[in-house]
C-alpha cells in the first residue's frame, strides 16, 4: 500500500465524491449489524438459560401428577429427585389481587443451578440458594410487590393459604424460555400445595419430576423411559408425560432461532438491496469522476497494475471505514431493538458471539465487491490517449453484467443469512416480483401524470416532462421508495389499526370476564355474587381435560393427531344439553333427548383434520381413565364470539365421574377501557368472588387484549425501526439516482437560465417533479399496504374489510414531503450555482 493511494482516497472523500458510496455502505452494515446483534444476543441469552433450563439433568413433565413408578425407578437408579408443580392462580394482599404464575417446589429444588434471592427491595445483596422455600413462606418476583402494593413481610393469600413474603426472586434456573407475558411469579413449598386447595382434578397445571445424578444413571433412566414409551405406544398414543432433556430443548429452540434470525435478516436484506442500488449508482458517478484522474495517471506513465492497486486500496479502505462505522451505528441501533423487546424478554443478555461481527464485515465486503467494484472495474483499462481525446469510449462493464453481479452478491448474502438456498430464492424472487409490479403500476401513473402535464403552466409541464423523460431513473427512485414506504405502512397499520378494529367489531354483548376453576360446590355461591350486580353470564360449562386415543378401536397415530392442531395435546371437554349460542350444527343432529349410548359433538374443522365422520366411536382418556362415545354431530364454531367454546361436547353424564371444574363468561359492561388502568378499574364482583372462592380464576378480556396489543406493539415497533433504516437506504437511492443525471440537469438548467428562465421556474419545475414522484410513490405504497391489510383483516382476523383513509393520507403526505425535501436538498446546487459557472464546470 502506498501513501499516495491513501492521499488520493482522502482527497476524493474531501471532494465529496465518496459521501454517497460510504453512507450507503454504512447504512447497509448498520441494518445488518443491528439485526444480527439483536438476534444473536437474544438467542444466546435464551440458550444460556436452557443449559440450566431444567434445574436438573433430566425431567419428566406432565399435565397430571407424575406417576410414582417414575420416582421409584429414579430412586432405584440412584438419582436424586425433586418435584415442581406450576399453574396460574389469583393471589391477594389485602384487597389487591393478581393472576400470578405459581410454582410449588419440593425442598430439594433446584437440583442443578441456583436460585438468586434477596431480601432487599431494591434488588441489592443478592444471595444464592440451592433449596426451595420452607412451608409458610412465599418467594416472589419483585414486580409482584408493585402489582399488589405489598412489601417484604406482608402476608399473601394463595388459594386457601396465607403465606409470608420472605424473599425476592432475582433469578431461578428453570423459569422457562423467557418469553414472558404470563403473570408475576410466586414460589411456594410443595408441602403447602394441598392446603391451598388450588389443584383439583381437571385443573390446568404442569408437573415436573426433576432428576440429577451421574451420567450412566441418567442414560439408564432415559433408556428405561424410551423402552417403556415404545411398549406403551400400543396402549396409548399420546403419552401423558414427556421426557425433557437439555439437548432436546436446545434443539427445538435452535430451529426457532434460526427461523427468527433469518426473518429479521431478510427484512434487513431489503435495506442491503436498496443500499446496494444506491452504492452502484453512486459508484458509477464516482467512476466518471475518476476517469480523468486515471487517464492522467496513465499518461504520466503509471502502469495499469498501479491503477488497479490504487483502486483496490481505495475500495478496501472504504469497506473498512464504512464497515467499522456501520458496526458502530448498528451496535447503537441494536440497543433500541433490545429496549423495545425488553418487556417481552425476561433473559439476561450475554455479550454477543463473533457471528454478528462476521456477518457485518462480510456484508460490507460483499457490498463493495458486488455493487461498487463492477462500476469501477474498467478504470485501469482506460487508454492514456483519453487525456487528448475525451470522446474516446471507455469499455464499461455492461449494465446487464453489473446487474447480475449485484444480484449474485445479494443472493449470496441472502442465502447466507437464511442458511437456505430455497428461502433466499423465494425471498429475492418475491421481492423482485414486488418491484416489478410496483414498476408497472408506477409506469401507468407516470403516463397519466405526463398527460396531465401537457396542459399545465410552464414549470409544471417542465417538471412532469422531466419525470417522463428520465423514466428509467424515475422508476428506480419510485420502486425503492414505494416498497419501503409500503412495508412501513403495513407494519404501522397493523400496530395502530388491527387490534382496535378487531375490538370495535366485537358484538356489544361480548363477555368481559372469564371464570375458570370454579368447583362444583362453588358454582351456586358465584352465581349469587353475580346476581347481586345483575350480571349476565353465558351458560356454565363443566370442564375436564382429556386426550383422544382411539378411533373405532384403532390407535390414533401421532402423525394423525399432529395434523389436527387443536387435538394434538390435552383438550378441554365439556357436556351440555343446549347447543352453545355461537355454534351451528352442520352435520348430524344435536341431541333432543338422551341418546342410547354415550354421544358427543365435534367441531367440523378438527373432525376433518382427524378424518372422523358421523357414527365413528372415539375413545378418550381423562386422567388415565378411558371411555368411548359416538360422534353424532358436527358443529361450526364462531370463535370470534369470545364465548366459552369447545372442540368436543358430550351429552351430559359422560364426564360426571371426573369431578369437573366449571367455566363461564361474564358480561360485565364495556369491554374497551383506557389502556393502563386495568388494575384500578377492576369489576366489583371480582373482589368478593375471589375472596370467598380463592381458588377460582378470573381472566379479564381487557388484560388479554392489552397483552396481545403489547406484544404486537413491541414486535411492530422493532420492525418499524429496521424499516426506518431501510427507508434511509431508499433515500440514498433517490440521492444517488439524482446524482446520475446531475451534470445533465446542471447543464440543462444553466441553458434554461441563460435563455431567460428565472430561478423560480427552475425551482418550481424541480418541486413539481419531486412532488409528483413522491405522490406516485405514496399512492403505490398506500395501495399495496391497503391490499395487504385487507387480506390480514379478512383472512387472518376474520374481520369485515375496512378502509384506512389515514394510511393513504400518511403514505401520500410522507412520500411527497420526503421526496421533495430530499430531492431539493440534493439539487440545491442546480438551482443556486450561476449558469456561467455551471457551464464552465462542465466544460
Amino acid at each position, binding site marked *: 500500500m502506498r501513501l*499516495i493511494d491513501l492521499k488520493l482516497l482522502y482527497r476524493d472523500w474531501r471532494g465529496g465524491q465518496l459521501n454517497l458510496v460510504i453512507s450507503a455502505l454504512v447504512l447497509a452494515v448498520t441494518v445488518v449489524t443491528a439485526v444480527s446483534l439483536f438476534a444473536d444476543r437474544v438467542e444466546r441469552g435464551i440458550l444460556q438459560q436452557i443449559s440450566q433450563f431444567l434445574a436438573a439433568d433430566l425431567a419428566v413433565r406432565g399435565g397430571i401428577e407424575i406417576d410414582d413408578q417414575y420416582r421409584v425407578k429414579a430412586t432405584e437408579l440412584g438419582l436424586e429427585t425433586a418435584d415442581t408443580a406450576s399453574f396460574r392462580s389469583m393471589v391477594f394482599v389485602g384487597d389487591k389481587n393478581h393472576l400470578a404464575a405459581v410454582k410449588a417446589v419440593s425442598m430439594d429444588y433446584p437440583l442443578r443451578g441456583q436460585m438468586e434471592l434477596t431480601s432487599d427491595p431494591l434488588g441489592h445483596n443478592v444471595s444464592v440458594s440451592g433449596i426451595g422455600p420452607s412451608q409458610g413462606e412465599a418467594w416472589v418476583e419483585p414486580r409482584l410487590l408493585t402489582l399488589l402494593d405489598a412489601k417484604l413481610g406482608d402476608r399473601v393469600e394463595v388459594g386457601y393459604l396465607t403465606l409470608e413474603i420472605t424473599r425476592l426472586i432475582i433469578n431461578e434456573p428453570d423459569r422457562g424460555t423467557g418469553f414472558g407475558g404470563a403473570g408475576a411469579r410466586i414460589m411456594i413449598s410443595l408441602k403447602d400445595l394441598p392446603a391451598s386447595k388450588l389443584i383439583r382434578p381437571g385443573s390446568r397445571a404442569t408437573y415436573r419430576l426433576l432428576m440429577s445424578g451421574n451420567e450412566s444413571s441418567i442414560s439408564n433412566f432415559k433408556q428405561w423411559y424410551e423402552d417403556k414409551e415404545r411398549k406403551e405406544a400400543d396402549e396409548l398414543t399420546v403419552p401423558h408425560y414427556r421426557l425433557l432433556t437439555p439437548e432436546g430443548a436446545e434443539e427445538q429452540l435452535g430451529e426457532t432461532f434460526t427461523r427468527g434470525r433469518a426473518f429479521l435478516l431478510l427484512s434487513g436484506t431489503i435495506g442491503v438491496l436498496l443500499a446496494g442500488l444506491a452504492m452502484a449508482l453512486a459508484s458509477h458517478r464516482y467512476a466518471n469522476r475518476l476517469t480523468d484522474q486515471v487517464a492522467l495517471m496513465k499518461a*504520466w*506513465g*503509471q*502502469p495499469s497494475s498501479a491503477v488497479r492497486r490504487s483502486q483496490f486500496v481505495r475500495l478496501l479502505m472504504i469497506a473498512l471505514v464504512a464497515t467499522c462505522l456501520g458496526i458502530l451505528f448498528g451496535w447503537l441501533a441494536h440497543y433500541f431493538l433490545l429496549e423495545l423487546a425488553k418487556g417481552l424478554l425476561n433473559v439476561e443478555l450475554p455479550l454477543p458471539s463473533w457471528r454478528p461481527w462476521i456477518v457485518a464485515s462480510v456484508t460490507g465486503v460483499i457490498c463493495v465487491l458486488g455493487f461498487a467494484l463492477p462500476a469501477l472495474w474498467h478504470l485501469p483499462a482506460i*487508454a492514456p490517449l483519453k487525456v487528448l481525446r475525451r470522446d474516446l469510449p471507455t469499455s464499461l462493464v455492461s449494465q446487464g453484467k453489473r446487474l447480475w453481479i449485484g444480484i449474485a452478491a445479494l443472493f449470496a448474502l441472502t442465502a447466507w443469512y437464511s442458511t437456505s438456498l430455497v428461502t433466499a430464492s423465494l425471498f429475492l424472487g418475491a421481492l423482485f416480483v414486488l418491484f416489478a409490479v410496483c414498476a408497472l403500476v408506477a409506469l401507468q401513473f407516470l403516463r397519466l401524470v405526463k398527460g396531465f402535464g401537457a396542459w399545465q403552466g410552464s414549470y409544471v409541464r417542465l417538471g412532469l416532462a422531466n419525470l417522463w423523460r428520465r423514466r428509467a431513473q424515475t422508476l428506480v427512485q419510485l420502486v425503492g421508495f414505494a416498497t419501503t414506504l409500503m412495508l412501513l405502512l403495513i407494519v404501522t397499520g397493523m400496530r395502530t389499526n388491527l387490534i382496535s378494529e378487531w375490538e370495535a367489531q366485537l358484538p356489544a354483548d361480548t363477555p368481559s370476564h372469564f371464570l375458570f376453576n370454579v368447583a362444583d360446590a362453588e358454582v351456586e355461591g358465584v352465581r349469587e355474587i353475580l346476581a347481586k350486580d345483575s350480571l349476565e353470564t353465558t351458560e356454565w360449562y363443566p370442564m375436564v381435560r382429556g386426550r383422544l386415543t382411539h378411533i373405532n378401536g384403532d390407535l390414533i397415530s401421532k402423525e394423525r393427531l399432529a395434523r389436527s392442531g387443536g387435538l394434538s395435546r390435552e383438550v378441554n371437554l365439556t357436556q351440555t344439553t343446549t347447543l352453545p349460542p355461537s355454534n351451528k350444527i352442520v352435520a348430524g343432529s344435536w341431541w333432543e333427548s338422551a341418546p342410547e349410548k354415550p354421544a358427543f359433538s365435534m367441531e367440523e374443522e378438527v373432525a376433518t383434520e382427524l378424518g372422523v365422520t358421523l357414527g365413528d366411536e372415539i375413545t378418550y382418556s381423562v386422567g388415565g381413565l378411558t371411555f368411548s362415545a359416538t360422534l353424532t354431530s358436527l358443529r361450526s364454531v364462531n370463535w370470534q364470539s369470545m364465548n366459552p367454546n369447545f372442540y368436543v361436547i358430550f351429552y351430559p353424564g359422560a364426564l360426571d365421574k371426573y369431578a369437573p371444574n366449571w367455566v363461564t363468561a361474564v358480561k360485565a359492561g364495556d369491554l374497551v377501557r383506557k389502556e393502563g388502568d386495568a388494575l384500578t378499574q377492576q369489576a366489583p364482583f371480582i373482589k368478593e368472588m375471589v375472596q370467598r372462592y380463592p381458588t377460582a380464576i378470573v381472566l379479564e378480556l381487557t388484560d388479554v387484549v392489552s397483552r396481545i396489543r403489547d406484544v404486537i406493539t413491541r414486535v411492530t415497533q422493532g420492525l418499524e425501526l429496521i424499516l426506518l433504516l431501510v427507508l434511509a437506504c431508499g433515500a440514498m437511492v433517490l440521492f444517488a439516482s439524482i446524482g446520475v443525471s446531475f451534470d445533465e440537469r446542471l447543464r440543462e438548467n444553466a441553458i434554461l437560465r441563460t435563455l431567460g428562465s428565472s430561478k423560480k421556474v427552475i425551482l418550481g419545475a424541480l418541486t413539481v417533479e419531486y412532488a409528483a414522484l413522491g405522490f406516485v410513490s405514496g399512492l403505490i405504497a398506500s395501495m399495496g399496504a391497503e391490499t395487504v391489510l385487507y387480506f390480514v383483516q379478512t383472512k387472518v382476523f376474520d374481520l369485515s374489510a375496512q378502509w384506512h383513509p389515514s394510511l393513504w393520507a400518511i403514505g401520500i403526505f410522507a412520500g411527497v414531503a420526503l421526496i421533495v425535501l430530499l430531492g431539493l436538498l440534493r439539487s440545491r446546487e442546480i438551482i443556486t450555482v450561476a449558469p456561467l459557472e455551471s457551464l464552465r464546470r462542465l466544460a
Partner: protein
Amino acid sequence: MPNKILRVRSVNKTVQTADQSLTILNDISFDLEASQSLAIVGPSGAGKSTLLGLLAGLDEPTSGDIWMGEHHITEMDEEGRARVRAQLVGFVFQTFQLLGSLTALENVALPMELAGQTNAQSRAKEFLDKVGLSERLSHYPKQLSGGEQQRVAVARAFACAPKLLFADEPTGNLDQGTGAKVSDLLFELNEQSQTTLVLVTHEQRLANRCQTIITIDGGELTQTVDNRKEQSRAIA
C-alpha cells in the same frame, strides 16, 4: 545522432470505421533534436492531435517507427511505453486537465507523488511560485480563472522535469492576452529547464516562437519550416 530526442519514420495511422478504413496520418517522418521546440500546425481535423498522441507514446501507429531518445516506443507494449513516459514526458492540455477535488498545490505535486518523489510538495511550491501563483496554493481549480488554471498546469508539467513536453493547444481555451502570458511562461520555463517542447496549435504567433514548424494537412506532412534559420535571418 545522440542529441535526437524524437525520430519519426514513415508513420501511418488508419482507423477502421463501419464500412471503410480512414487514413488519419500518412507517411510522416521527421527528427527533433533535444532542447528544441516544435510546433505542429494545420487545419482542424488534419491529424495534429493524433500525431501528438503518437509522439507522446499515448497511442500506437498503424505502421512506422518512433524513437523517443533511445527507446523504440513503437516496438513496446503499453506498459513499456508507460515506463518511458514516466521517465521522459510531461503534458499541458487545452482543457487544463486539473483535478477538481485537488488544490493547486496538490495538482502540481500529484505526478511527482505518483512517481514516488519525496520532495514533491516543496518542488510543487517552487514551480507554483515560478508561475506566479504562490498565493493560490490551496485554491481549488474552480476558484481559479482559466489563465490561472493553465499556469497551474504548466507548473505541473515542468515540476516533473520532463525531457519532452507535449502541449496540446495550450492557449486554445484562453483569450488572447491570457494566452500570450501563458505562452511566455511556457517558453520561459522551457528555456530554463532545457526541455524539448512539442506543441500543437492553431495560433501562428505561438507556432512562430518554436524553432521548427511542421504543417499537417489531410494527414500528410506538407511543410517543414526551420525557424532557426528564419529567426537568425531576421536578426541578421
